[in-house]
């Protein structure tokens, strides 16, 4: 075997010439811990507390549990709606609720969220009307909510592009004297895109208050992480931008909220961006249209099922006497009511005025669009006449 520079380096590390005293490692404060932060065992029993990541207040955890349960029920309802043909497509959040709800709880209401298509549960947890969350996926328009009012960018499909927007928004807010933080969601696969690189780098150079939350759910559609990167972990990408980072067990709700709370505080305090890699798993196929059996084993899915974040948090909160049967039942009922209301409202086909197609291409339609609008108007009138 050829000796590689690293082999040599390791071998010679001790023999280093005394003439060159070892400089302090300038990357030390940037590297993530080698292991994901974890505060609960997979079975929900607590690990010993740690100074660096104190446990969040128990009321926050209880609220987290509530939103996760409602979110999961919402998610199941959305998946059911695809089967009834009420949604064009639905990418499920199931299994990732700790990340999505944790992100929302770590933020203030006036902070900004930059979601991808996968973040439906984050958006409902933010209080956005579930029908508005599903507008994109039902197919009546591209974005159902008012992003400015909800401080939430449109669900982003072109992968990683939102990483740059978040940097710009966050810098723009601080430029205008506001202490807003932006949190950008991104998947493991999308970290390979150039826009991830450019976004995190811009945020770092401009010290923009952004938290990048990588939900490493192990797959990009069918492609496993091993085809995506040779890095020890995705969190290690931070150091190349001068951005501190951390790994967290993404199915440990307590750890997720603890780590994200710190990351948000870091950003808000003016220290620039922070990168969090949450190790989690997508329990469902990529979307309802996907066939996940083509690329992963039932065993693997089952193993991750045993680390379910909702069950884990419930176990923990019950053990701490924060939840009892009654409370769990009440939250379950709330979730059922939420789903029922959604089901009901999604039961009718929305009507969308075809002429609205011309309303928002520009602030004012161009003469060309006005002409095309007239064409469509005449067609619709003729159709109506025809059917009248």
């Amino acid at each position, binding site marked *: 075997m050829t000796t590689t520079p690293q082999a040599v380096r390791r071998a010679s590390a001790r023999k280093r010439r005394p003439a060159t005293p070892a400089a302090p490692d300038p990357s030390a404060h940037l590297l993530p811990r080698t292991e994901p932060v974890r505060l609960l065992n997979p079975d929900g029993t607590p690990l010993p507390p740690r100074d660096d990541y104190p446990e969040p207040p128990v009321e926050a955890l209880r609220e987290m549990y509530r939103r996760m349960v409602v979110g999961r029920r919402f998610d199941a309802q959305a998946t059911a709606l695809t089967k009834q043909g009420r949604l*064009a*497509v639905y990418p499920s959040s199931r299994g990732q609720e700790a990340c999505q709800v944790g992100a929302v709880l770590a933020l203030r209401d006036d902070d900004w969220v930059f979601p991808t298509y996968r973040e439906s549960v984050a958006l409902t947890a933010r209080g956005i009307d579930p029908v508005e969350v599903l507008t*994109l*996926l*039902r*197919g*009546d*328009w*591209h974005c159902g909510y008012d992003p400015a009012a909800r401080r939430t960018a449109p669900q982003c*499909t*072109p*992968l990683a592009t939102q990483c740059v927007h978040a940097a710009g928004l966050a810098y723009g807010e601080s430029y205008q004297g506001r202490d807003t933080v932006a949190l950008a969601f991104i998947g493991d*696969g*999308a970290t*390979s*895109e*150039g*826009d991830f690189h450019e976004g995190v780098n811009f945020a770092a150079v401009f010290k923009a208050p952004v938290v990048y939350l990588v939900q490493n759910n192990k797959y*990009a*559609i*069918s*492609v496993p992480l091993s*085809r*995506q*990167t040779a890095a020890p972990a995705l969190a290690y990408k931070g150091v190349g931008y001068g951005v501190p980072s951390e790994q967290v067990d993404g199915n440990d709700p307590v750890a997720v909220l603890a780590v994200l709370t710190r990351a948000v505080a870091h950003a808000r305090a003016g220290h620039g961006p922070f990168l969090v890699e949450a190790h989690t798993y997508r329990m469902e196929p990529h979307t309802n*249209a*996907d*066939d996940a059996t*083509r*690329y992963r084993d039932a065993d693997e899915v089952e193993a991750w099922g045993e680390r379910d974040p909702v069950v884990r948090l419930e176990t923990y909160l019950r053990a701490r006497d924060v939840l009892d049967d009654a409370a769990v039942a009440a939250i379950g009922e709330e979730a059922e009511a939420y789903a029922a209301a959604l089901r009901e409202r999604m039961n009718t086909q*929305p009507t*969308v005025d*075809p002429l609205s*197609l*011309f309303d928002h*291409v520009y602030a004012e339609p*161009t003469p*060309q*669009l006005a002409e*095309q609008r007239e064409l*469509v108007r005449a*067609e619709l009138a003729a159709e109506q006449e025809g059917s009248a």
Partner: protein
Amino acid sequence: MATMTMAKALNAALADAMLADDRVLVFGEDVGQLGGVFRITDGLQARFGDKRCFDTPLAEAGIVGFAVGLAMSGLRPVVEMQFDAFAYPAFEQIASHVAKLRNRTRGALSVPIVIRVPYAGGIGGVEHHCDSSEAYYAHTPGLKVVTPATVEDAYSLLREAIDDPDPVVFMEPKKLYFASAEAELPARKEPFGRAVVRRAGTDATLVAYGPAVPVALAAAEAAGEEGWDLEVVDLRTVVPFDDATVAASVRRTGRCVVIQEAQGFAGVGAEIAARVQERCFHALHAPVLRVSGLDIPYPAPMLEHTHLPSVDRVLDTVARLQWDDQPDARWVAA
């Protein structure tokens, strides 16, 4: 003869090309074990191994740039962009390298890459999944731009594209993937640059390509009932363009409507109209008219039928071809 879908024909073309030439590598996002989100590469990894058909990191500039390097090493990469709008991150690699390398090096380097792009709408896809992006490529010298409208052509043109010494952007109309037809493979049809008259007619010529061809054919059928006998020309290759076939048809019929699914402004249909009116000026009884997508971002699924060229819209346009030798009222007023 067997009935098969365009998806299957494309899959067969890839397999046959890989069989015929070791240098052919197929890669992109989810094309390996999954067989592609549209299953166009289904079974290729199992059959040819994961060195011949493989998944890459999720990065389109990376995929196209990697293909450039592989082509420089003598291989023949066939890459898949998962959807039309997801090829945009690769735009610089395509426009500044793929299209130009032969020219930049006076022919010393060639990059015979095929970039497969599932494109256009009609499948209820959400935003960014339905763009008709052919004009961006057709406007870029050095690229060939090809789009099949029939099952046999899908096979034939893809084989042609892989054999071609130049880079080819191979645009696959998504809405036709699962339409099936009788086909006998391996079918090798007309070479690049040859348009085909899909339906003969005498009164006017409909020029179309890709997803617009079935619309044109349906419109021609319907027009029969209104007493118009329409000819339909399927371009097959947008670049190179078959001026001869198109102009010959229009000179015969004296009238022409160009149909494309993409938004109209500065699209391929504009080029066709401009060429036809130049070449057939004295044969034309009416201006060359266009039916295209609206000049709007591709709409959400529930509104896409308003956007897409429909049989009715084509017929309305044919009706405006000044059959009574009167100028178009729309422009006389102006």
